[in-house]
């Protein structure tokens, strides 16, 4: 029972981290129709910038400055890169962001090298916040939870309660009408892209010390972010949140408990073959849940695409 609670907290941390990445991506996608392949690269940039800043000014200044730098960089990419490519259609845009992801990885390797960076948790938060049946919950995790929740609430407030949010939401569905009403839609796009990448930057800043800062970190997280927004429904902030938490909990629980395929299959009524060594389905019989934990979100995505193509909270038919 205690372990369930601990796993719930761990899954929440993973999920909220994923949410910060997917929130920006889902907004960008729904607004501009661009699948931003470089989104996870901005997450990586956030971690590296924060590491560099923390060397001189400490962790907290890194948390403050790095996302802003990443956001400005994102806005510049939109203004001088994506906007020019936009007129040629979606495929060139896709290729542009894909190339950008590769470019950023190479630049990061060029500047910081290929090693792991010693970017670590600030001293103030380096203690055990609470302990549940011998399982320590580090204070840094609690900090991660609060930061992500604060960002979600702020984002929700801006999008639904402020004038800027109204314009963004309107531009999501009727960009031409909004433009006709005298709003500067390209500026809105640039802003959304900037804020989206800044969010990815924040995720990088706070995830860097725990998930380690190295040039492959974008790659490791890249694909799962797309899965999240597809499951959640494109353009839906709530969808991104629910899908992120779902993925966080599914993977955490699948890893935490050794559920064996053998037990499931015999449970349904199949009989276990006596000699497995040469059996055709040997691999299926010997699978355990931790081995396939990281594939489960993809499985979920396929199911969602089959039964609810517009995602859990999506409004439009894909």
């Amino acid at each position, binding site marked *: 029972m205690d*372990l369930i609670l*601990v*796993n719930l907290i*761990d899954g929440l*941390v*993973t999920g909220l981290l994923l949410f910060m990445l997917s929130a920006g991506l889902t907004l960008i996608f729904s607004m501009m129709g661009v699948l931003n392949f470089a989104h996870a690269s901005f997450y990586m940039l956030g971690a590296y910038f924060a590491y560099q800043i923390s060397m001189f000014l400490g962790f907290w200044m890194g948390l403050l400055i790095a996302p802003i730098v990443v956001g400005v960089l994102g806005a510049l990419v939109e203004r001088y890169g994506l906007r020019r490519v936009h007129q040629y259609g979606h495929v060139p845009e896709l290729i542009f962001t894909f190339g950008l992801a590769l470019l950023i*990885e190479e630049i990061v*390797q060029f500047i910081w*090298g*290929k*090693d*792991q*960076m*010693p970017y*670590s948790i600030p001293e103030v938060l380096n203690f*055990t916040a609470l*302990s549940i*049946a*011998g*399982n*320590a919950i*580090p204070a840094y995790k609690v900090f991660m939870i609060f930061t992500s929740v604060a960002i979600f609430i702020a984002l929700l407030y801006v999008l639904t309660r402020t004038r800027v949010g109204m314009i963004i939401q309107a531009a999501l569905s009727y960009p031409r009408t909004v433009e006709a009403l005298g709003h500067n839609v390209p500026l809105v796009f640039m802003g959304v892209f900037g804020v989206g990448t800044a969010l990815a930057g924040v995720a990088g800043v706070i995830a860097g010390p*725990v*998930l*380690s800062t*190295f*040039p*492959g970190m974008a*790659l*490791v*997280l890249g694909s*799962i972010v797309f899965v999240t927004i597809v499951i959640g429904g494109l353009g839906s902030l709530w969808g991104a949140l629910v899908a992120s938490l779902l993925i966080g909990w599914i*993977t*955490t*629980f699948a*890893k*935490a408990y*050794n559920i064996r395929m053998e037990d499931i299959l015999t449970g349904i009524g199949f009989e276990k073959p006596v000699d497995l060594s040469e059996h055709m389905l040997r691999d299926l019989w010997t699978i355990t849940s*931790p*081995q396939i*934990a*990281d594939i489960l979100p993809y499985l979920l995505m396929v199911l969602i695409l089959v039964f609810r193509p517009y995602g859990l909270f999506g409004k439009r038919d894909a």
Partner: protein
Amino acid sequence: MRKPIKLGLGAVLALTIGAGSAMAENIKIAFIDPLSGPFASTGSNGLKQYQFAADELVNKKGGVLDGQMFEIVPFDNKVSPKESLIQLQVAIDQGIRYVVQGNSSGVAHALTEAIEKHNKRNPDDRVLYLNYAAVDPALTNDDCTFWHFRFDANADIKMDALTDVIKETPEIKKVYIIGQDYSFGKAVAAAAVRMLAEKRPDIEIVGNELHPIGKVKDFTPYARKIVSSGADAVITGNWGSDMLNLGKSVVENGFTGPIYTYYAAGSGITAAFGESGKGVIRLISQGQINPPESDAAAAYIEAFEAKYPDGNIDQPRITNAIGMLAEAIKEAGSATDVVSVAKALEGMEYDDLFSGKVYMRPQDHQLIQDMFIGAHTDEGVTFDYDNSGYGIVVEHKVEMAGMDSPTTCKMKRP
């Protein structure tokens, strides 16, 4: 008609090769390892050590034979067996006859198989494979070939040395084994289970688990299982970012016992562990860095660190691979006749710069050498890793580990 043409071509080829060597052409060595992706840091550090060893041990001494220099040619395989085979073909097409690779036994299996086939089909341009870190025991047992030489101790030999230490540590009563889900991770787990049962039947193995290699973002759930299992010690063969993330996560979530590792040093891992790894991380490896084995070893490390301020000598066996290859080429009198070079390598004794004598066992091409178990610490460190002040200090030494370990290797010699 066919045969004379072939013979004629062969003669022309032999002439051109002869002419080439007269002009002291470089001996090219293909370095096939990850230079991008999650394991890039491990691969690129290995490359630096190879380039330095080739310069220092061979080229500065005037090369081998009539002044031929060693040249390391890097190929990025992204730790993918498929990509490695493509790179191997490119290397062979460039006329390269020596291949070095180490990261991932999965890749090593693919390479031995491909090289075996290639050498059978192309007796005129055979290739030798010097494996410096892929330690799946099968490579020098059931799957051994004449063309493969291993310079690191295999997983069984390392585990043998490691369990000797655990045997002397009575406070360890429960052990958790965790590794990457591929041939090497499975080999480590199997060896640990077998040897612990032999040496310490009272030890309970409270967990034995594999996780996907290079794909786990967050090791927290695994760390929870380890902590709640009540384990006194953890054994893992993990390497690269999988090692760092597992170790950090286990320490952060409240584990205080020793974590016995194969690869938790260098490539940024030591710096990233820092204070948190002190008293926890143990490393089983060959080559003694702290305290330095000799003045020559210290001078070598100093020269390396002067040239690559960010680099580490974290795979000291690379000096053996390069040094022994040079000796073998000298003994064979030819760099192109790889069969003679391989025969010269068999049974060779060599003075390891970082420990005593090493011996290339002819039956299975496994290098027999001293093994060291060290601790991650900042005390008594002459040469740190990652400029962090932390390094590995030797605690135990096992001389000529696995000298009479059994092998099932039945190699076909040309």
